[in-house]
């Protein structure tokens, strides 16, 4: 096994499990599984035609599933004794994630290849690869994809700012606690409130304080959301404003873990602070930096709230992220099938891109340390 798992707890237990107990455990698992099948079959058979029987929806199946999950956990202890008790630590979370992710994903794949508009009464129709063909020729989707590339690239300046702030916070300063709390604040605010506070009110063309400042600085008619580049930049800036504290804190934690002797030694050796930073601090911070950037990319890929609330993708789709585009695809057109396909394609692209990134990061870090 890999060495990253630390020292494990080794316990030797002599469990004496009677065959009757084992049988009971197996019976619990299979019995409750059968219950699900029966309830689901009843549901399909009676349909939604007889709501008075309590089968108006799939709730009973859900309850049967819950019973099965509890029985499965209980049976672990019955069948496997002490090892079962250990399994019990991980099993609830695994079951939860499994049924909340794997099942909807499989279900989503089914939806992705069908023509399904929730607003129309027709219901779901399988339509093969029509959605893919539509996606291929959808300029707005690919436009949103390119925007995502820009948004992800915006992480580099964010990282530079966050690193600078972390260095400052790590320096000998007074009132460090105040600055730390102040710098943390943007992260606590909800993106929706931020989009009103900054996007709608402070950037308001007539009376917003930032527009006023721009006018003082000599911009005649500050319009922040009319040109595509400017609008995209503003969205990036607002998102950066919220998330810079996050990277800053991770980097700060890394900086504080560096032994003081190292920087002192470089000072004694006569290195300038600038050189000391590039040859000692920065290389030591590389692993932390890469972790922070990777996590930030993951969060960036989910960017939507600000866009939905400030520009709703405009002007002309210039600020659209994939998530906000799909959100509107559903909100405006109730187009579940097509929207799901777009999301699935996005997921595949993300997984491939993240895997490549993680491999590169891994290889890049290894020869140096």
């Amino acid at each position, binding site marked *: *096994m890999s060495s990253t*798992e630390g020292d494990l707890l080794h316990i030797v237990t002599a469990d004496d499990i009677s065959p009757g107990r084992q049988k009971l455990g197996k019976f619990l698992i299979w019995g409750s599984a059968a219950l699900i099948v029966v309830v689901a079959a009843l549901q399909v058979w009676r349909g939604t035609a007889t709501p008075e029987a309590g089968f108006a929806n799939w709730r009973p199946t859900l309850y049967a599933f819950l019973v099965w999950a509890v029985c499965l956990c209980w049976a672990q202890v019955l069948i496997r004794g002490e090892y079962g008790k250990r*399994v019990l630590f991980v099993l609830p979370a*695994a079951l939860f994630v499994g049924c909340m992710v794997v099942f909807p994903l499989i279900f989503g794949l089914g939806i992705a290849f069908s023509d399904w508009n929730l607003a129309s009464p027709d219901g779901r129709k399988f339509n093969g690869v029509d959605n893919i063909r539509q996606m291929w020729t959808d300029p707005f989707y690919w436009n949103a994809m390119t925007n995502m590339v820009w948004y992800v690239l915006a992480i580099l300046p964010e990282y530079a700012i966050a690193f600078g702030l972390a260095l400052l916070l790590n320096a000998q300063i007074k009132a460090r606690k105040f600055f730390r709390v*102040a710098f943390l604040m943007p992260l606590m605010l909800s993106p929706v409130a931020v989009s009103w506070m900054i996007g709608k009110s402070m950037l308001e063309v007539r009376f917003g304080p930032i527009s006023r400042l721009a006018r003082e600085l000599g911009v005649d008619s500050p319009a922040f959301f009319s040109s595509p580049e400017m609008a995209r930049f503003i969205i990036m800036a607002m998102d950066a404003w919220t998330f810079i504290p996050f990277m800053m804190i991770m980097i700060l934690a890394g900086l504080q873990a560096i032994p003081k002797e190292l920087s002192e030694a470089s000072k004694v050796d006569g290195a300038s602070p600038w050189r000391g930073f590039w040859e000692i601090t920065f290389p030591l911070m590389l692993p932390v930096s890469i972790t922070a950037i990777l996590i930030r990319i993951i969060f960036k890929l989910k960017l*939507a709230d600000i866009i939905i609330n400030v520009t709703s993708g405009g002007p002309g789709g210039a600020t659209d992220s994939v998530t906000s585009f799909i959100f509107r695809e559903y909100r405006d057109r109730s187009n*579940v099938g097509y929207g799901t396909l777009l999301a699935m394609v996005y997921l595949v692209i993300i997984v491939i891109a993240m895997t490549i990134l993680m491999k590169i990061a891994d290889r890049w870090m290894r020869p140096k340390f």
Partner: protein
Amino acid sequence: MPNSASNEQIFHDSPADKGHSAKWWTSRVLIYGILILWAFICLFPIYWTITTSFKRAPDVMQGNMIPWVDFVPNWLGWRSLGLSPDTIGAESTVRAEFMKRFLNSTIISVSASLLAVILGSLAAYGLSRFSYKFGFMRNSDISFFFLSQLILPPVVLALPFLVLYKSLALLDTRIGLILLYTLTVLPIVIWIMRDQFGSIPTELEEAALVDGLSIWGAFLTIIMPIALPGMVAAFIISLVLTWNEYFFAALLTSTNAVTLPVMVASQTGSQGISWWSMAALSFAAILPLIVIGIILERFIIKGMAAGAIK
């Protein structure tokens, strides 16, 4: 340089050290200048929102900033929410609506975070202590399975969940949102807690087991109290993320389980809404987290730093 005259200073500062003080002062000024500038950038939007909620229309248009100097504060924004001193006693439909959503947000975010911390800590503890074999999956695979959920963008799950919840009658219910939010923060909790449990020596449990405690007893009575600060950190970070969540709430709720961010968002769109009441609403929505941020800052930092140092 040795000197025979006794009243002369023997040790002199080298020229490099004398240049130091001027340089030191400029660097001080620069450091504090940047720190104060950034603190201003971070805090000004909050200040702007608070003051705007006390402004009247002419104050907004003239861009008055400082209360009592530029303009006379006024309860206009809070009155429209039914939260000003003179309306707090009276009946108010807006306030009832606001309180309902506030309550929804609180219940949903607290229970989702609690559930995530319970499930996540158990799983993280198990993964840090025992070696498992679930079919082909070993510990590192199971960890990866949990953490990889972080990559999953919400939009992939949103539409399947919409359809699933519809057939399960979970649409527009608190339970539905709680389950989804738990799912979204679970990987983060496991990430933080794995780190926490990893730093606790296994000798502690070994001693407890020798003394006759079961493994669950050892976990509950010995390990959990030690790991409690980490759990609090994970809980608070989950709370922040779930309180602010907008995407799922906007898609999956309509009337009963609407959360505060959805209420704020629905008001921004409408034209008739006035600045002061929007400001009051936004501020009321962010206030709980500002308070948490100020009081529990060290837990948040601890939680976020968990992944940084290995």
